[in-house]
């Protein structure tokens, strides 16, 4: 059993490490510091941490202003409140002037659990991906989280990094290199390709095992870099495997699935299935129950692969 770590815990620790290296880094939160783990940074660097209270829109404006004066602001909130709740502020105060603001959110997706629909961001990838100048990253595990956060701090411009609440198994080891705009193959295969992000990457690994027992060999691509998206890897996967399944803890509208579909439609139309939330709001329940009923697990990925393989054969590829 792989080691389990919460990406937000890794994030909290990474901020402290990076804070020591970059004296211009400042961290902002809106009354969720205890949950997003920015509280750890505040204990280490109290003079560089600012809790704006419950005023997310205001917080984005503060970050924008701070960045114009040479600071590297890292802004944290729950994903729902760091995206949709502040969409226009992110769009016009951060992305339009292309400011050096890092929005790093936690508690994304339905795996928030019992808090229910109001707290379950299933639309944030869609929103943030649509903004010019924005970079969007959804790390798959703790190792990738640390690398992606470091990359964001060391790179100019707006970033949106999406983390969850749960402990996740590690899918990478320390040798893993995060490269923006590149998908990383976790497994090679010729029958179909699963392109996944976040906690769905590990589900894809499980799905691939089940499929291989049935003689189906899938490639798995980790699409942590949602924007920019790795067009080459998608086109290559389409050419070499002829069928694509995307998997994300997000609505099937506007997220990773859409990003991949856009590339395929323009370059190489290919049978495809999207695993994700099917255009509905979330609800209360345990994370495990919710991931099951919304079809965000290995079982659903296996079903989608089998379905897409049917279409691949029909097409006579």
């Amino acid at each position, binding site marked *: 059993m792989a080691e389990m770590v919460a990406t937000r815990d890794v994030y909290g620790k990474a901020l402290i490490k990076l804070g020591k290296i970059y004296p211009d880094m400042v961290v902002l939160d809106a*009354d969720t510091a205890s949950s997003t783990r920015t509280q750890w940074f505040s204990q280490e660097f109290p003079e560089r941490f600012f*809790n704006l*209270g*419950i005023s997310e829109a*205001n917080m984005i404006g503060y970050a924008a202003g701070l960045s114009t004066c040479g600071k590297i602001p890292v802004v944290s909130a729950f994903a729902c409140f760091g995206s949709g*709740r502040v969409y226009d502020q992110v769009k016009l105060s951060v992305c339009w002037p292309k400011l050096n603001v890092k929005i790093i959110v936690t508690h994304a997706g339905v795996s928030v659990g019992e808090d229910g629909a*109001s*707290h379950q961001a299933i639309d944030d990838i869609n929103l943030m991906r649509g903004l010019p100048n924005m970079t969007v990253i959804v790390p798959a595990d703790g190792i990738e989280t640390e690398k992606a956060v470091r990359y964001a701090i060391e790179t100019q411009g707006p970033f949106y990094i999406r983390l969850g609440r749960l402990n996740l198994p590690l899918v990478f080891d320390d040798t893993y290199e995060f490269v923006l705009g590149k998908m990383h193959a976790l497994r090679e295969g010729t029958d179909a390709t699963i392109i996944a992000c976040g906690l769905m990457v590990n589900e894809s690994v499980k799905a691939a095992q089940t499929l291989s027992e049935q003689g189906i060999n899938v490639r798995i691509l980790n699409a942590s870099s949602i924007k920019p998206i790795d067009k080459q890897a998608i086109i290559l996967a389409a050419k070499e495997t002829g069928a694509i399944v995307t998997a994300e803890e997000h609505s099937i509208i506007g997220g990773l699935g859409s990003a991949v579909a856009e590339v395929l439609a323009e370059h190489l139309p290919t049978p495809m299935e999207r695993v994700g939330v099917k255009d509905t709001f979330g609800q*209360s329940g345990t994370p495990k129950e919710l991931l099951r009923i919304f079809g965000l697990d290995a079982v659903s990925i296996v079903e989608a692969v089998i379905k897409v393989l049917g279409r691949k054969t029909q097409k006579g590829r």
Partner: protein
Amino acid sequence: MEDIINLKERAKEVRRLVINMITEANSGHPGGSLSMTDIITTLYFSIMNHSAANPAWEERDRFVLSKGHACPAYYAVLSLCGYFPASELLKLRKLGSILQGHPDSKVTPGVDFSTGSLGQGLSAACGMALAGKIDKKDYRVYAIIGDGESQEGQIWEAAMSAAHFKLDNLCVFLDCNKLQIDGKVEDIMNIEPVIDKWKAFGWNTIQIDGHSIEEIIEAAGIAHKTKGKPTMIVADTIKGKCVSFMEGKVCFHGTAPNREQEQQALRELE
């Protein structure tokens, strides 16, 4: 209208239910539920005009829980009023329940508006009050907001507009329990002098002890008689009120009691 002694008993019952529900769900927000229990109990059992038999009754008074996370107390009151059976309460936050983690007007009978993203409910309450004015209806609109929630800019946008539209059919309680998630309101982002702010925004303001049922009733009565202005009742409260180990404790903002703590709390609430 129930008498004061009955209302106090009701509030105690609501608190017991809040503890049961959150313990059973093993998640939820006890602190802010207990701080507003006396207010919401008094609203539904003494002040508001409403009908459990007909939740969509057009002439009913409306209620918006802008600090939606405190819904366990809201649900307990609605159930005691007869909007749904008490057996639903122990399904709080469970898969498929009519009692979601934050109020969902689509699934819970009696819930007039969905909330959970702080700062948004008050504007909706203003909209309901404005509709009442347009249609020359007699219903009143009540809302409860949090002191941490008062840090949201949208609260003050609503404040300005409600005075502008002379929404004297709107009466809002500020559950001033001095705490939010990350600590004391005054340390995180001070909102004081908050009553002066509401006054400056053109509201009729009243300060009360938010655990005194007499004062809650009296203030709502003054609000009802006030013409041309909305009323803000700044209610001094204690987060976690009536459960000794929760009172004034930030850690019980969003943490469920365990079974042992549940038993102790219930003993204190006998």
